[in-house]
């Protein structure tokens, strides 16, 4: 039987999804030993997991290094990879939102300066609104940008809004809701269809239970 390669995002989300997979019978005992290895194979060799940077999951899957993977909708929207999006896991829920300093008003008479980790999502959003913007791509600590007057607003992931509040910022508009998705490489889907469907339906069943 063909081995299925699964790219899991490092961190809480990946661990949670692995727990779901374990429950569904795709366990890999080695994973319990919290060491620094990145690749783990199940005892019967039917499934292989690897931990990758969350924003790289889509690349591993698109290029076929992983047959399936778990990626946030934010990553999928930003990179628009050519893959199948099979399932909404309904976990890792948050949203991409526009945020600004408390009391900021966009009067629309100047080019809006937008700091973000997601230049494609931000441009698409403002293009739809017909707003002229200047994108400032940052890789972290986005909240700093409006405080230092580097930008007028930020477009970033908002979970609870605590980080924003502590920095005297507030969300003003929701761009898009985000959750974790099961994605598959298009070619792998053809040749490992049975196993991929198995994983997909197992996860789907647990998602429904969870609801």
């Amino acid at each position, binding site marked *: 039987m063909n081995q299925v390669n699964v790219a899991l995002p490092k961190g809480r989300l990946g661990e949670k999804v692995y727990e779901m997979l374990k429950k569904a019978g795709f366990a890999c005992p080695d994973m319990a030993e919290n060491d620094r290895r990145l690749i783990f194979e199940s005892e019967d060799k039917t499934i292989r997991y690897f931990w990758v940077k969350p924003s790289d999951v889509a690349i591993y899957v698109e290029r076929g290094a992983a047959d399936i993977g778990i990626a946030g909708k934010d990553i999928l929207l930003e990179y628009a990879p050519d893959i*199948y999006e099979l399932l909404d896991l309904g976990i890792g829920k948050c949203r991409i939102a526009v945020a600004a300093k408390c009391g900021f008003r966009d009067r629309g008479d100047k080019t809006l300066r937008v700091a973000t980790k997601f230049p494609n999502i931000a441009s698409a959003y403002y293009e739809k609104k017909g707003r002229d913007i200047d994108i400032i791509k940052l890789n972290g600590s986005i909240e700093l940008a409006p405080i230092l007057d580097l930008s007028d607003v930020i477009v970033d992931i908002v979970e609870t809004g605590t980080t924003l509040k502590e920095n005297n910022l507030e969300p003003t508009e929701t761009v898009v809701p985000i959750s974790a998705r099961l994605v598959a*490489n298009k*070619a792998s889907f053809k040749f490992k269809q049975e196993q991929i469907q198995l994983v997909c339906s197992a996860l789907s069943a647990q998602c429904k239970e969870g609801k």
Partner: protein
Amino acid sequence: MQMNIEGLEQRICGLYRQYGYNQFKMNKFEEYDTYVKNKDFLISDKVITFTDTNGKLLAMKPDVTISIIKNSDDEASDIQRVYYNENVYRVSENSHGFREIMQSGLECIGAIDTYNICEVIMLAAKSIECVGKKYVLDISHMGLVAAILAAIGIDMDVVGEILHVIGEKNIPELNSICERYGLDASKTAKLMELINIYGPVAEVAEKLSAFCIDKETEKAVNELKEICDVIETYGLAQNVRIDFSVVNDMKYYNGIVFRGYIEDVPQGILSGGQYDRLMAKMGKKSKAIGFAVYLDLIERLFEENHEFDADVLLCYEKGVSAALVAKKASEIVAGGKSVLVQTNNFKRTCCRETIMITNEEASR
């Protein structure tokens, strides 16, 4: 037998010739104007351009189909069959710069009928079969998908979005679109069914009847079913599958569309379909269907692991006569081995065995 990419190219072209396709040789350059009108048809809209001595803007060809259409004879009553094996220049999906990409394919132009469509699908399947790996050719019917969307009353504005999620087999997103536009449950269910259908033509053809909603859909379903039957008689029923997630731009494609995959290559290596709308846009009355095989994606499969540069490393000291070295080298080659002649034993070269000719030996 170890096959290489050149061997594969020859086999594929031989296959096309068997069915009466003639080779189309094209110019390296084409007027930029030819492409600019149909930019969306191209895989990438980036084209290498330059100005000719007479001031005309030319382009290094990014695509062959458009040139073939341009040169096709619209008045001819017979069907024109051409194949090509050309290098094209475009930005590849994976790298960010221009690349020279090897591409083979064929076009069938004229008053094409169901037989011609089946012939092209068969040749597409056989082309990727030539690679010698497990393969799958997924086919869809843009006419049927469009008719279904029209029959259940999907707004033209939403069609693009819906096609996109069908292409991703993205059921959760489809649900949210349907909710957003307030489609009723029965319509949503039909679209779901469309995404969920996937399998060899032999198994799936039956299920298509569910999509006979009105005259248009019925016509398209019957066409697709007839094609499925012919594919079975070609003996390809297991390798050709129906999959509506194969979506091409409706501005150009109107009928059968297909994409081919082989095991161990993560992307589709063949893509094609019936593009009467592109013909019409280019002022031609004829219908047309064709496909391209992306040989650059397959190339890596044939990379051999070269452990050795040659079988024998023949080293000689300075002063050994050239005649002696030549004689020795010829002997080795005559013995059926490859030889690499060097003056010193370079660390970089790696051969199965090493033979030294020293001055001492030479004088003997």
